């Protein structure tokens, strides 16, 4: 974990509600794909946790959906402005579990943290399949970016306006070595129930601190109570328990 100031280099919409924020600063605390940052915003008391979409030397990319006051404030920010960021939060995905042909499953904005994961897996020579689920064709983002990395990409839309009609679970390939999933909880639960084999799933939560101090985001797991922010946000399939 590191607190530092980043400077906005780009902040532009990818779709109606999804924005891409590019930042320059110290990315040394980002050690794994699937980690997140916690962003302090003027006038808002709590920081806002946002997954890291991509990171390389000194460049940080966040892809976020405008859903409330915090993300509205983020969307209004302009290049040149600075942000107070806690970086390197959470455990992230474990790329060592991937096997030869991993499957990446992203639901909506849940596709964001799969970008750095796909990059790392491709760099390690893996055959990577990506299934992205969206509500409708206007919400699709990064299909081409995943293809450009050499991933085999399938898109599903809930309204059938593009690609496979239905959810990511309607577009699961036959063979893969391990899966990684990120998206809203109903999607994660469907993946957990329907995708064969082992996997890691990344969860969202309302957080207080984002670094393990307040116990605000705890969920029950097979290994006892775990903090989504510190022990997660990524959990192995076998650890996960669902609310009744």
């Amino acid at each position: 974990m590191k607190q530092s100031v980043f400077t906005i280099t780009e902040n532009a919409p990818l779709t109606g509600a999804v924005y891409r924020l590019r930042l320059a600063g110290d990315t040394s605390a980002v050690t794994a794909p699937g980690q997140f940052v916690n962003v302090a915003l003027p006038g808002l008391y709590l920081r806002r946790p946002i997954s890291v979409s991509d990171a390389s030397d000194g460049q940080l990319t966040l892809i976020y959906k405008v859903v409330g006051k915090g993300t509205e404030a983020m969307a209004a920010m302009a290049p040149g402005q600075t942000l107070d960021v806690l970086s390197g939060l959470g455990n992230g995905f474990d790329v060592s579990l991937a096997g030869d042909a991993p499957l990446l499953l992203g639901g909506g904005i849940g596709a964001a943290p799969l970008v750095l994961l796909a990059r790392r897996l491709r760099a390690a020579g893996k055959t990577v399949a990506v299934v992205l689920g969206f509500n409708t064709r206007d919400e699709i983002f990064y299909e081409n970016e995943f293809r450009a990395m050499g991933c085999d990409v399938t898109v599903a839309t809930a309204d059938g306006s593009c690609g496979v009609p239905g959810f990511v679970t309607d577009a699961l390939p036959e063979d893969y070595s391990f899966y990684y999933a990120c998206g809203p909880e109903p999607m994660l639960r469907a993946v957990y129930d329907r995708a064969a084999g082992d996997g890691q799933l990344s969860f969202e939560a309302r957080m207080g601190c984002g670094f393990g101090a307040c116990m605000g985001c705890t969920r029950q797991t097979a290994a006892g109570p775990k903090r989504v922010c510190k022990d997660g946000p990524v959990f192995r399939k076998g650890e996960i328990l669902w609310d009744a």
Partner: protein
Amino acid sequence: MSVTLCGVELDNPVIPASGTFGYGYEFAELYDIDCLGTFSFKGTTKEPRFGNPQPRIAECRSGMLNAVGLQNPGVKAVIGEELPKLGKVFHKPVMANVSGFSVEEYAYTCARLDAHPQVGWLEVNVSCPNVHGGGMSFGTDPAAAASVVRAVKAVTTKPVIMKLTPNVTDIVSVAKACEDAGADGLSLINTVQAMRIDLKTKKPLLANGTGGLSGPAVFPLAVRMVYQVYEAVSIPVVGLGGVSSAEDVIEMMLAGATAVQVGAANLRDPYACRDIIAALPGVMNKYEIKTLRDIIGGAHG
């Protein structure tokens, strides 16, 4: 900057509040937490507790609400697993925060933590607004609070600081009852019972319905209560509630606090306590304060 809290000297009066600092290790990754006066670790109960369902956190204009509900691994695991790790990153007496659901349970947990060599004070929480049938129900009734004090004092040797709730009409009567029953100190205020309603679902945002409000929104309320309690008792008062700066620390001490806890500020800014301690000498200088001990209760006539 040193002060003496119930006979134990603190290098400075700044104390991270229970529930905002875990057992210290997350913060020790960021800075040397030996700079703190002490800290009050996560509230401990006899048995392990998962706490309340999600969501547990909400926000407001100048603060936050929590309904964590005393999640903790239970006193046995705290002593066996957490305190050994805490001892590696913090090398001063620590404040043990205790909660319970019966007088016997408070006494059981306090007796065990009292025996731990690093525990310097027991902070007994009779003020958690987020649990049912315990916590705050002991702190809203002077006689019930006094019964907890007597039970804990009977089985412990270390200073007992009673953590009081602001969710009462007359905090002074609870404070006096605790003093009369033998409490060595008081800390106040715990969070203020509050609620947010989600306009999308049109239902309370927190799964628990209500939560505890903390942060700058409650600071003036906390200053008022510390001021009133200081007038009425002769045992030391630990002031907390929305403290976010060195100026707030001094204001709280002028109201009557011997030491000052910092809570919600740690969650927004993990360096908050380190930075407040670093800023104190400059702010003391600005207001011509030579020693902090001399200003305790200075606002009183």
